[in-house]
């Protein structure tokens, strides 16, 4: 008999537990949607996405405003290691109640996290990722690819430069998947549009800091254009040294993957005249200027967003709107949310009106820019002049390419 009589301590404990339940019930009245911003916050891609992407995700949450649920953002540094990125994503999905991961700088990390998102039926929005595999053979019903990919960057630059007279090319390319893919896409485009590829120097990556040998080889090949199939510090070094050797006066320089943060790093004196492609520039139109003005106070060094960071804003905002439309309980199903995101037209200040294709690729136009000279620039970050626009359908890689979501 004594066994079933509750002791005083048990009663007290029960009361406390009930109070706790009541408390969590009160919290449960406002459900929480958690978004994870997973990027490179300490490595070479820190400035093109990193903490700036976090600021842009926060901006999207602030603009989304109060819905029927609260939005929380968690963030982590994947250190450019796919295993670290996948482990963080797994922990976020399993333990921390995260429903969507975005940013995903570095293609290898993005592919790994997309796998985790598919296995856990969550959402992965790659907004700072180059690889076309995400919408090709490794596409999934749980991931979308925002902002840009190597196909868009290489093709838009190569196509427009060939059209405007840069017919023979020499490539300086980083000897790893990213550099080879960029070079491959660009070389194919050059050949298809009637130009010629005179040669390529594939240099060891990482660990090369002097590019003058490759630049001189390019110059002695007699090419009209030297194309850089690399990114970040390698691009900056290459541009600096091309300027030093006076190459920019004799040949056209084209960056197949350049961000405004790279141009800022190298300075207009050196970068002037460079051709590069971006799907976003803060000074493109009234809406991009307005977005940049809103988000810049929170950005590292008050920089305007890069196309990767603008993509994080755009992707997060479209995701939040979709979740609000579906209702949070339904949106816990990642694949259903992604399907809904594909079915709903998007509109925001970063990219204007656009839509998402069946393979998960966001369709936005690609702009070819020329970097201004110091005399042309009216102030900080006034770096680009627009030369040409590639329409969204041509800027994205052809539909299909082994993606199981696309019905042949």
């Amino acid at each position, binding site marked *: 008999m004594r066994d079933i009589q509750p002791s005083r301590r048990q009663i007290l404990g029960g009361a406390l537990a009930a109070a706790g339940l009541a408390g969590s019930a009160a919290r449960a009245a406002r459900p929480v949607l958690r978004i994870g911003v997973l990027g490179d916050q300490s490595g*070479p891609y*820190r400035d093109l996405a990193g903490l700036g992407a976090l600021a842009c995700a926060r901006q999207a949450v602030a603009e989304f405003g109060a819905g029927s649920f609260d939005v929380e953002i968690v963030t982590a540094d994947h250190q450019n290691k796919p295993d670290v990125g996948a482990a963080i994503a797994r922990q976020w999905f399993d333990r921390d109640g995260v429903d969507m991961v975005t940013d995903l700088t570095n293609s290898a990390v993005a592919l790994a996290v997309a796998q985790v998102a598919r296995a856990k039926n969550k959402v992965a929005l790659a907004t700072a990722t180059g690889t076309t595999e995400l919408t090709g053979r490794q596409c999934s019903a749980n991931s979308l690819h925002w902002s840009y990919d190597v196909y868009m960057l290489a093709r838009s630059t190569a196509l427009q430069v060939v059209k405007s007279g840069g017919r023979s090319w020499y490539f300086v390319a980083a000897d790893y998947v990213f550099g080879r893919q960029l070079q491959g896409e660009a070389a194919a485009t050059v050949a298809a549009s009637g130009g010629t590829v005179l040669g390529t*120097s594939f*240099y060891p990556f990482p660990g090369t800091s002097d590019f003058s*040998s490759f630049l001189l*080889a390019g110059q002695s090949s007699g090419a009209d254009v030297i194309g850089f199939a690399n990114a970040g510090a390698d691009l*900056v070094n290459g541009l600096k040294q091309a300027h030093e050797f006076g190459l920019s006066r004799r040949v056209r320089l084209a960056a197949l993957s350049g961000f405004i943060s790279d141009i800022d790093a190298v*300075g207009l004196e*050196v970068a002037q005249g460079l051709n590069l492609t971006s799907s976003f520039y803060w000074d493109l139109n009234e809406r991009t200027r307005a977005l940049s003005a809103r988000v810049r106070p929170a950005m590292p*060094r008050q920089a305007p967003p890069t196309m990767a960071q603008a993509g994080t804003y755009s992707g997060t905002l479209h995701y939040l709107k979709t979740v609000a439309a579906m209702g949070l309980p339904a949106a816990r199903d990642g694949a259903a949310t992604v399907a809904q995101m594909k079915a709903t037209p998007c509109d925001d200040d970063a990219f204007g009106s656009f839509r998402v294709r069946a393979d998960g690729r966001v369709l936005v136009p690609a702009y070819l820019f020329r970097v201004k000279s110091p005399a042309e620039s009216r102030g900080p970050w006034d770096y680009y002049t627009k030369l040409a626009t590639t329409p969204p359908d041509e800027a994205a890689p052809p539909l299909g390419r082994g993606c199981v979501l696309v019905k042949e």
Partner: protein
Amino acid sequence: MFTIFGIPGPLLFGQLLLGLINGAFYAMLSLGLAVIFGLLNIINFAHGALFMMGAFVAWMLLNYAGIGYWWALLLAPLIVGAFGLVLERTLISRLYKLDHLYGLLLTFGLALVIEGLFRNEYGSSGMPYQIPSALQGATNLGFMFLPNYRGWVVVAALVVCIATWLLIEKTKLGAMLRAATENAPLVQAFGVNVPRMVTLTYAGGVALAALAGVLAAPIYSVNPNMGSSFINTVFAVVVIGGMGSIIGSVITGFGLGVIEGLTKVFYPEASATVVFVVMAIVLLTRPAGLFGKAA
């Protein structure tokens, strides 16, 4: 136009010269490392970070104080050298009695901390730094246009290397330094302040790294990781030259620059590996390095 192994002659000469220029950086960096290792027995893994600091201090002098390149050549090594002095007094001096490995771990950790702090403050994409106006432009050598600045780097590096070698091998101060590393108590018995000399030697080696950093600032991206791309090659240079051998590190620095330059013409994919291939061959045939004394 004549060709050598299918490569146009002018291109080949150009690459040889470029190799020599890169070799100048290797020589200057490995010189500092060799001085520190030869005299202090510390494997200074922070060398790349201090090289980066030299470049950043030049950038800061220009952007915060309006002090240009030429003064930076003098001031940045002094400032970074003073930082090295503090490092040696507060941290590194505690490890002299321990195994090499502890010094290696400490300086490696320091490198990570220094690079991390700079990355936090200045981001990772780098800062612009222009070539000084007096050295802009290029000279036509017939087979290539040599940017004046690169010519200056080779001359400056050669002068610094020879001066350092003379200082250590031919002066009384250098003789005392070498004696102190052989037998510190004996030199101390002659009334020489050995700990102070060791501190100044470390600061001197660090200042050499910073000077190389200032020289590098106009041609390489001034970013927090700029040292780490050099440091591996530079360690290979020191090992090939013979740990602690000053003349060895200078000759090997220039030599490897040229070998690397030639590899970039014939098979660019291997240009980062060739240094280590040479290192493996040298270690197999001469374990103490080309100019090292067998232990």
